[in-house]
């Protein structure tokens, strides 16, 4: 745990420090078969992967940019650099990570967190992982936690081939196709049957290179009866040109297994975050999502859960904080295929300083799914008159015996509540921050302590100077 609970003044600078781009190998900007081949060479892909990438590129060119959400006109794909790496390759000891990258992760508290409370850590810097390590006792249980590239050539190569972009096919949408073509980095996790990983694994993604994209792929398979908590954190310094994040997360939760997937995303405000996350849940298995979206200029993010097996369960807890120049379109999707499946989507959104937050959800109950239960709850808090909050829930219920609930609330911070807290000696700024933190409390409760502290710091940071 990072000792941040005593922090009084929050310093955004830990996120904003840009490292000089030293010793970098950058691919030419743009998207051509030639560039894809170069990436494939660079990564020493198996043949099938090279072909897959080229197919994805074709699909990418064929598909249209989504027109139903926030504008991504500011994103000029001809100028995004899809692959940037250091000359030095990945390491599994901190000592071998290049000094400046090590400093960056030290500032973000990653190695400290690993020492104290994590079963394993992966750290990605731009396009490649720079560090990957898993605790010996966890490895001894047979848990595999590695970068995806080495997994592609190792013992689990067939397993990866069988799962890679099967849940999120490249035809899903334009940026899924892009991801398939240029993906790099990310993690592979396999938890064998019956193994319960008691402490979390964590991947941290840092995009430092200006005008670049990050396209990491996370593939997690939790085998029958096993359980895992996986955490991802993301941040980037701010540049005045667009950066792009189009990662992909595919999660396979087998019969009787449990997976919790927690994310705190704090991309800088020039980032287009077009991320795709999807999970398929087996019989009697459980998926829990905890998702905090604070950063990026534009986000499209709707983790999707397919409740395939009977009695599969899903719970999604999310918070989105949209400030100045942010248009964050977030939510969740769930598909009920199995009988007696249940899902709960509970989100909070906060908008201020002209920020736009849109909650979008989709609940589908297949006609074969008997006695499905789904509930969606969305609460929004607008901190001023120039901000915006929308709720777009979609439901497609094809079974007669489904139990479906939906509630949405949009509110403001009450002046009376601010006065109440101020009459106790609390400053206006702190009073507002307390109310907002309280609003977000059910989400921070779901996070590991150091992330909850981080989230509260982010809220305080966002609330600083908000008194006009």
């Amino acid at each position, binding site marked *: 745990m990072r000792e941040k609970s005593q922090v009084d003044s929050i310093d955004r600078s830990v996120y904003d420090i840009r490292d000089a781009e030293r010793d970098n190998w950058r691919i030419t900007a743009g998207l051509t078969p030639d560039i894809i081949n170069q990436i494939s060479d660079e990564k020493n892909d198996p043949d099938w992967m090279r072909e897959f990438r080229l197919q994805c590129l074709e699909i990418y060119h064929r598909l249209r940019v989504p027109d139903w959400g926030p504008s991504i006109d500011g994103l000029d794909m001809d100028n995004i650099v899809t692959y940037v790496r250091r000359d030095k390759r990945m390491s599994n000891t901190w000592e071998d990570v290049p000094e400046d990258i090590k400093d960056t992760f030290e500032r973000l508290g990653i190695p400290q967190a690993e020492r104290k409370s994590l079963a394993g850590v992966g750290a990605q810097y731009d396009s490649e992982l720079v560090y990957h390590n898993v605790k010996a006792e966890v490895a001894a249980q047979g848990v595999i936690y590695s970068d995806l590239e080495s997994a592609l050539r190792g013992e689990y190569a067939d397993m990866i081939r069988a799962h890679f972009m099967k849940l999120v096919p490249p035809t899903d949408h334009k940026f899924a196709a892009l991801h398939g073509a240029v993906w790099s980095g990310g993690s592979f996790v396999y938890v064998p049957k019956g193994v319960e990983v008691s402490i979390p694994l964590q991947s941290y993604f840092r995009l430092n290179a200006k005008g670049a994209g990050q396209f990491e792929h996370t593939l997690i398979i939790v085998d029958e009866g096993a359980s895992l908590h996986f955490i991802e954190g993301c941040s980037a310094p701010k540049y005045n040109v667009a950066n792009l994040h189009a990662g992909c997360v595919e999660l396979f939760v087998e019969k009787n297994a449990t997976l919790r997937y927690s994310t705190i995303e704090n991309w800088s405000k020039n980032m287009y975050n077009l991320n795709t996350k999807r999970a398929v849940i087996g019989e009697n298995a459980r998926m829990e999502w905890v998702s905090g979206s604070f950063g990026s200029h534009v986000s499209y993010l709707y983790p999707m859960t397919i409740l395939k097996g009977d009695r599969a369960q899903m719970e999604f807890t999310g918070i989105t904080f949209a400030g100045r120049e942010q248009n964050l379109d977030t939510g969740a999707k769930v598909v009920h295929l199995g009988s007696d499946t249940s899902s709960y989507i509970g989100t909070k959104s906060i908008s201020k300083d002209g920020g736009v937050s849109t909650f979008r959800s989709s609940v589908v109950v297949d006609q074969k799914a008997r006695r499905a239960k789904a509930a969606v709850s969305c609460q929004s808090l607008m901190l001023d008159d120039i901000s915006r909050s929308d709720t777009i829930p979609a439901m497609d219920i094809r079974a007669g015996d489904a139990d479906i609930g939906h509630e949405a609330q949009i509110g403001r911070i*009450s*002046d*009376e*509540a601010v*006065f*109440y*807290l*101020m*009459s*106790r*000696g*609390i*400053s*206006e700024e*702190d*009073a507002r921050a*307390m*109310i907002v*933190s*309280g*609003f*977000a*409390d*059910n989400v921070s409760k779901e996070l590991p302590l150091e992330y909850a502290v981080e989230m509260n710091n982010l809220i305080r940071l966002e609330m600083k100077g908000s008194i006009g």
Partner: protein
Amino acid sequence: MSTPLLSVHHIDVAVENKRILHDISLDIAPGETHVLMGPNGAGKSTLGYALMGSPRYTISGGDILFKNEDITEETPDKRAKRGMFLSFQEPLEVPGLSLESFLRSAISERTGEKIRPWEFCKQMKKVMELLEISPEKAERGLNVGFSGGEKKKAEILQMLLFRPDLAILDETDSGLDVDAVRLVAEGIRTYQQETGGALLIITHSTRILEPLHIDRTHIMVDGALVYQGDGSLVDRINREGYDEFISMKRA
């Protein structure tokens, strides 16, 4: 009378440009207990809010001195730090902010120093016991899911932990059952005895006042203070009501 703790000089109070309180003057000395009574809608609560600095109200004339400092223009948090407290008639709910962590941050704000968690916890539990507030409320969101009586008791809890020099209690007894009134009155007496703090008790009933020594009673009718007397005035109102005072209202 010694140097006043609170000295209100001829204030007018308006809400949205409509004047609702007229030419109010009032002095409260350290440790004194004053009662403000009057029929419904007289403006008693407005005075309490205005003294605490509610942004809803503007003071369009006169000034307010607290401990000899002019606080007329000060924000509520600054007034609180100087030693003022207002028990709300309808305490606000703040979901997700636990009563305990709220109390802790407010105390460290007021005193400017970090308090030892263990010490604080002990104190808080003691006062919660006195007021018969069930311990699990400390973990709950501030006032969230509290009954009317529990909210009022939580206000008294705050008063006892913050130890202000002047506590304004706005209708703290309204809507309470007999037990809750007894506990609230017990809390108020503890505050008087342990801190020697002054009180301005706004009420239109008299149940809560029975066990207390009252120094001064003010009658407000139609936005003006029309009459004042000592503690015995409370009994008179108890017997005779406000009729005789209503005719005294501002010309």
